């Protein structure tokens, strides 16, 4: 079967866009070919810094012939209607078929669409894909109008069948497709003619281009590990950096070096961050001390001197960078020793947090006030939490964090220790930003928890108060993440806390936002959003730990046979009461009187309800939701029996009214546990 090979050779594609671009090329070509009915086998896309490539195996030589039938007007329809049908289908009148219909005869046009050769279809689809390619950012160049991520230089597009290769005829913006590619920019820049996918990969490899990003990453990883081992070190795992670096080189060459001793006293995070952010170096760690003692840089070529000049150049840049870093570190330590961490934080009074929310200093004072209120509720000493709140953001005024914003918190911990502050305070400096993402754990130390909650709640209430809420399209202040952080800290730590008083003026709206985020968060754990809704009407819904305990107990109960039947009974009771209330125009919400109970099943329900109500109320008061559900389960049999044996709409109006009020009471007793009207499904 023929194989299709496409390569789009351009100037350097940003590393961060490469994986997505390869996926998009594969997806869009596959969709395009499918829409034209051209079948094929497996599809693989590849990407390097200079090329996007696609291999399609088992490409059909042609698309199949297709027959399409269109029903037209009746044979006795006005001439204009028939003429319109002929125009729309492009079929001659004498070619129309006449077929009988229920009430006469109808014209049919039978359109035979012959299949088309693969090359023609590929050319059309590829042009469409190139012109509409979803780059996150595209550009024009020269005098052209085509948009691509960077200037597009060559298009290779051919269909290979056995030994023969056919170039797909295609010209876009002056670039004609051919069977030529180029090797490595420096090591093999000459054009290379290729005859098919396998030939292409081999010739590229010989021209110092590894086409497959996974292969480049594997080579980098293995080389880095070996270079580290040779020095008695281990590489610091960094998948994101590995992917990025694999997108910066076509021919990875691993070069390892040593950190000069003058810089070894810098915190390992500083060394790592500086090397990673500025130079894309991998860090090599001494496994016994945790210190970063070496680095690996990935060059894009081999050289006659075995990379000596490249390594020396990189080492010089590193030394300059680390000199800067050490300068910041020493300056910051001097500031902290002279003025204390609170002294460092004072500079934040002059830094605007948000035009309408004051300075960073104002924000710190708000966080401190919140932390004081939260501390006793999460088991943290109030004074310690307040102190931690005052210094937790101090490192934002440090030179190191100005240079490396991602070190916020981490530097704070070092500087707090240097200032001789209690360890719980130092930890809070680093921990109060957590959880940093879905994979990151929330803080657990009480002081850290107090400051983390205060920090996030201040963000949320602040932006809420100025109407800067997240919208469907944007969340520039990452408020969803802040709310999720609060939710996870509370739930995972089991912290009992009423949020509404902390939210102040915006409590109502912000709490609704929290409940929405809670539903999203718990969905992953199989908790139904309607069960959450059913519990929101109960008191204490701003205490998320309590709310979730209630929700879990209810969902567990609903999944039992008792629960499902009781829900059915509740629905029956509710719908009868509602229907009769509508009909009679009254509310059956009086207390029913057992004196009017005539049937044994009716009397039994009275008795069980009184008892269940007592047990439910006691269980709820004790926050024992499992017990409340068990108490409710006792209602199931009497309710079932009631509906089996008692006619609600009795002839005696007093008895009827009493029975409707009894059903209303079933609803209200169960309503103490949850709002069952919110539960979805039948």
């Amino acid at each position, binding site marked *: 079967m023929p194989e299709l090979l496409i390569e789009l050779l351009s100037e350097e594609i940003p590393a961060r866009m490469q994986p997505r671009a390869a996926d998009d090329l594969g997806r869009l070509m596959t969709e395009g070919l499918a829409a034209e009915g051209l079948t094929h086998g497996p599809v693989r896309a590849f990407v390097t810094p200079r090329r996007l490539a696609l291999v399609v195996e088992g490409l059909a030589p042609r698309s199949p012939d297709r027959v399409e039938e269109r029903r037209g007007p009746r044979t006795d329809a006005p001439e204009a209607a028939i003429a319109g049908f002929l125009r729309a289908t492009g079929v001659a009148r004498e070619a129309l078929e006449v077929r009988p219909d229920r009430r006469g005869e109808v014209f049919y046009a039978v359109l035979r669409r012959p299949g088309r050769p693969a090359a023609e279809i590929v050319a059309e689809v590829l042009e469409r894909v190139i012109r509409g390619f979803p780059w996150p950012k595209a*550009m*024009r*160049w*020269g005098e052209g109008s085509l948009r691509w*991520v960077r200037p597009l230089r060559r298009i290779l597009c051919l269909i290979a069948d056995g030994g023969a290769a056919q170039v797909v005829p295609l010209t876009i913006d002056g670039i004609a497709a051919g069977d030529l590619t180029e090797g490595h920019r420096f090591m093999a820049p000459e054009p290379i003619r290729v005859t098919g996918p396998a030939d292409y990969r081999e010739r590229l490899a010989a021209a110092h281009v590894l086409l497959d990003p996974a292969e480049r990453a594997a080579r980098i990883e293995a080389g880095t590990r070996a270079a580290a081992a040779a020095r008695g070190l281990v590489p610091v795992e960094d998948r994101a950096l590995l992917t990025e670096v694999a997108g910066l080189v076509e021919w990875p060459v691993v070069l390892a070096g040593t950190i000069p001793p003058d810089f070894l006293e810098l915190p390992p995070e500083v060394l790592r961050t500086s090397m990673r952010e500025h*130079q894309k170096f991998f860090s090599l760690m001494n496994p016994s001390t945790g210190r970063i003692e070496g680095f690996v840089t990935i060059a894009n*070529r081999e050289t006659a001197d075995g990379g000596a000049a490249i390594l020396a150049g990189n080492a010089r*840049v590193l030394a300059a960078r680390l000199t800067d870093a050490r300068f910041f570190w020493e300056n910051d330590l001097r500031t902290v020793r002279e003025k204390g961490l609170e002294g460092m934080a004072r500079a934040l009074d002059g830094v605007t947090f948000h035009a309408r929310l004051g300075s960073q200093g104002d924000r710190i004072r708000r966080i401190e006030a919140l932390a004081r209120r939260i501390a006793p509720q999460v088991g943290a000493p109030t004074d310690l939490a307040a102190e931690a709140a005052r210094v937790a953001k101090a490192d934002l005024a440090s030179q190191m964090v100005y240079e490396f914003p991602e070190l916020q918190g981490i530097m704070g911990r070092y500087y707090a220790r240097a200032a001789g502050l209690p360890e719980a305070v130092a930890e809070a400096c680093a921990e109060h930003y957590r959880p940093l993402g879905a994979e990151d754990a929330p803080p657990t130390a009480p002081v850290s928890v107090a400051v983390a909650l205060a920090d996030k709640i201040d963000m949320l209430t602040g932006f809420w108060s100025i109407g800067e809420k997240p919208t469907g399209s944007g969340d520039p202040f990452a408020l969803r993440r802040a709310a999720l952080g609060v939710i996870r800290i509370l739930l995972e730590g089991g912290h009992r806390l009423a949020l509404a008083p902390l939210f102040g003026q915006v409590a109502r709206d912000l709490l609704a936002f929290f409940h929405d985020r809670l539903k999203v968060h718990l969905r992953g754990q199989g908790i139904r959003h309607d069960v959450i809704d059913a519990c929101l009407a109960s008191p204490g819904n701003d205490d998320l730990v309590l709310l979730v305990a209630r929700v879990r107990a209810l969902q567990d109960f609903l999944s039992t046979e008792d629960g499902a039947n009781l829900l059915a009974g509740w629905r029956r009771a509710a719908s009868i009461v509602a229907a009769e209330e509508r009909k009679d125009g009254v509310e059956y919400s009086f207390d029913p009187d057992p004196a009017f109970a005539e049937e044994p099943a009716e009397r039994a329900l009275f008795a069980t309800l009184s008892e269940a109500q007592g047990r439910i109320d006691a269980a709820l008061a004790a926050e024992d939701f499992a017990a409340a559900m068990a108490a409710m389960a006792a209602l199931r049999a009497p309710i079932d029996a009631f509906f089996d044996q008692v006619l609600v709409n009795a002839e005696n109006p007093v008895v009827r009214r009493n029975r409707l009020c009894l059903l209303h009471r079933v609803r209200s007793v169960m309503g103490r546990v949850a709002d069952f009207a919110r539960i979805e499904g039948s």
Partner: protein
Amino acid sequence: MSAPRSFQEIILRLQDYWARQGCAILQPYDMEVGAGTFHPATTLRALGPRPWAAAYVQPSRRPTDGRYGDNPNRLQHYYQYQVLIKPSPPDLQELYLGSLGAIGIDMALHDIRFVEDDWESPTLGAWGLGWEVWCDGMEISQFTYFQQVGGHDCHPVSGELTYGLERLAMYVLGVDHVMDMPFNDPAAPIALSYGDVFRQAEREYSRWNFHVADTGMLLRHFEDAEAECRRILEQPQTDPATGRRIVMAHPAYDQCIKASHIFNLLDARGVISPTERQAYIARVRALARACADAFLATEAGQGAGEG
């Protein structure tokens, strides 16, 4: 190509190389600017349909980067080498690499990389896509395809190359402190280092930029430049003195450049809060846009047939 021996030899070789590629070798613009991009030969000439090819050295000032001449690679006054070619030729990357060869970088021994770096100048209302060019992990140039300048889409697109000359030269010459770099030939009868030429001035300007510059006066000058720019552009297109149509885009743009530099000085004096900062940048950008509009109304800014 043999290795160059001084800072000025690197400049001379770049001049020679780009002259051989057909660029007009211009001289620095005679005003204080923050980067070579501000030269009207780049900002204004990137606009409109007429082809253009120019290269020049531009002394550039960044008052906040002053370190009294002590820091090995930070200066408040430094040089950029700037190339602008419109439309961007298809082999601009190869031409650029040729220039590295011309200043003695042996591409067979070094690792040259094009690493994503999108350029944006909020004050010029300009942006483009391109890379920073790395040599052995060191950033030695910016390479940009202009997409918009002064709020106008660039069509055709210009290719812009900017070399940070001191940093590049330090790398090529193997010098660790900028002040130690040979400025002229080290074997010359009077050999001068970069420090001999600039250390004194760096010290003086650092003091003036950070502590002495009269902020009240600077604020007034900012207002003056802004008002004059506006006033120039409000003049009727037909000159009453000569009866000719003369749109004064360049004099107006000078005032825009002036306002931009004064803003940088005020920033170095620490009298501009983060909120005000945005407002000042927006004011300069508004001037740059107005100047770009005006340039497109000049003969030089229009197509050959329209001029």
